[in-house]
């Protein structure tokens, strides 16, 4: 096996690894400064503001085009969520009724749950905790 000092591939991989570490360390140092935080947050604040304005504009545009607005879609989503919730309630109620009548979820699925009797295996001699 070629040693790492003569293997061009190993040298290349080592160089990539070192470059990655070096760049990460350099960037981390630069990003630790308050100036970086200030610049980054100014940029993202401006983006958030622009996003909001765009969103308002789109809302008006959709209204003009006689298309459902975001608020209407959210309303529909809420109704769907409410239907989902009611379905879950019905499911829970059915399970309760089954339990009261002696039919358990296990018996419905015909796969009984294993007993809760497992004990940890004995520690091997000399094993450390």
């Amino acid at each position: 096996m070629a040693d790492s000092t003569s293997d061009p591939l190993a040298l290349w991989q080592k160089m990539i690894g070192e470059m990655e570490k070096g760049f990460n360390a350099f960037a981390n140092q630069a990003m630790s400064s308050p100036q970086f935080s200030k610049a980054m947050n100014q940029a993202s604040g401006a983006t958030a503001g622009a996003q909001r304005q765009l969103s308002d504009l789109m809302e008006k545009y959709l209204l003009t085009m006689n298309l459902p607005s975001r608020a209407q879609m959210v309303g529909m989503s809420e109704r769907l969520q409410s239907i989902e919730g009611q379905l879950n309630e019905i499911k829970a109620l059915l399970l309760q009724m089954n339990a009261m009548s002696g039919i358990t979820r296990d018996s419905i699925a015909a796969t009984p749950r294993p007993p809760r009797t497992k004990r940890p295996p004995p520690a091997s001699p000399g094993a450390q905790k």
Partner: protein
Amino acid sequence: MNAPAGLDLASLPDRIQSEVQRAIQRSVKGVEYFASSGPSLGSTPKDILNVRGTMNLYHYRPQTDEIYRVPVLIVMATTNRGYILDLVPGQSFIEFLLTRGYDVYMLDWSAPRPEEKKLRMEDYVLDFIPDCVRHVQQDSGETDVSVIGYCFGGVLSLLYGSIFHDGPMKNLICFTTPIDFREMKLFSNFSDRRYFDVDHLVDSIGNVPPEMILSSFEMLRPASRAASQVQLWENIWNDEYVKSYRMFDRWATDTLPLAGEYFRAITKDLMWDNKLYDGTMSVGGRAADLANIKVPILHAVAEHDHIVPYDAAKHLIPKVGSEDKEEVMLKGGHVSLVAGANAIKRLWPKLDSWLGERST
């Protein structure tokens, strides 16, 4: 002309031949890479027990003839999907627990919908987790429940455990859980209160988009994505490497948005005021002092964690009120601690030996 020191001329033809073969393989496999989908993740058989908006509670079907008495509820971090703990058969933490005889449940998150931007820390700690614990109790027929929290799932589990300290949590296991948020140096600087207007952000966009969460993670190691793509190209002839790359890459980029109000609370209470570390944290007016936690607790931290450095995580064990408590530091990073080859060898057996004797 002499060969450079250390260069073995006799092996050079073999080396060249091997490199040529790999170059051909790279071209063939490179086409396959783009033409095929990645491995199917999170496929351990499970049933949905409860779904409510962003909250999903799963029960994994037991795989042994007998199981431990105490069921286990895994609380996933709100920024990422739970399938990191259930990658593929043979590399799944969930599968490992099932084959070791645990009854496993998972509280996983889906992307909060726009109308869920109003979810607060209270909703997560005082509603979602207790609701899931109740479902686990009801489904398993057991009162006691062990909780495992990964990363911010650990923070939520700690807040839950410190408020509901009279039970029913029997054991608590945290993976890479931050306590001192000032020690998460870059995140702390990104969210510097002098420059970061969290109110403006949340009021403008509602839920914090996943791209923003992903960028903030990637900025911690800005060169690593490019370097990993170079490594992928070098190893694209190696099916195992490619499979592993695709699994982790898919998970890492599958980041979830965060509910706006919840993000506001994390920023103000944890990043700015460091209340969990100071012992002044409260959720919905209820004190969440870590000293209230008295149950057995294990905290697993990673030696090379660039997201939650050890200095941010090391305070957990000293601050909880438990007598039976242990911190274990293992080789690996924030993700390789819990998933992948390192985890199979190190964390999982350790967790099994710790939790098994406390689950009867």
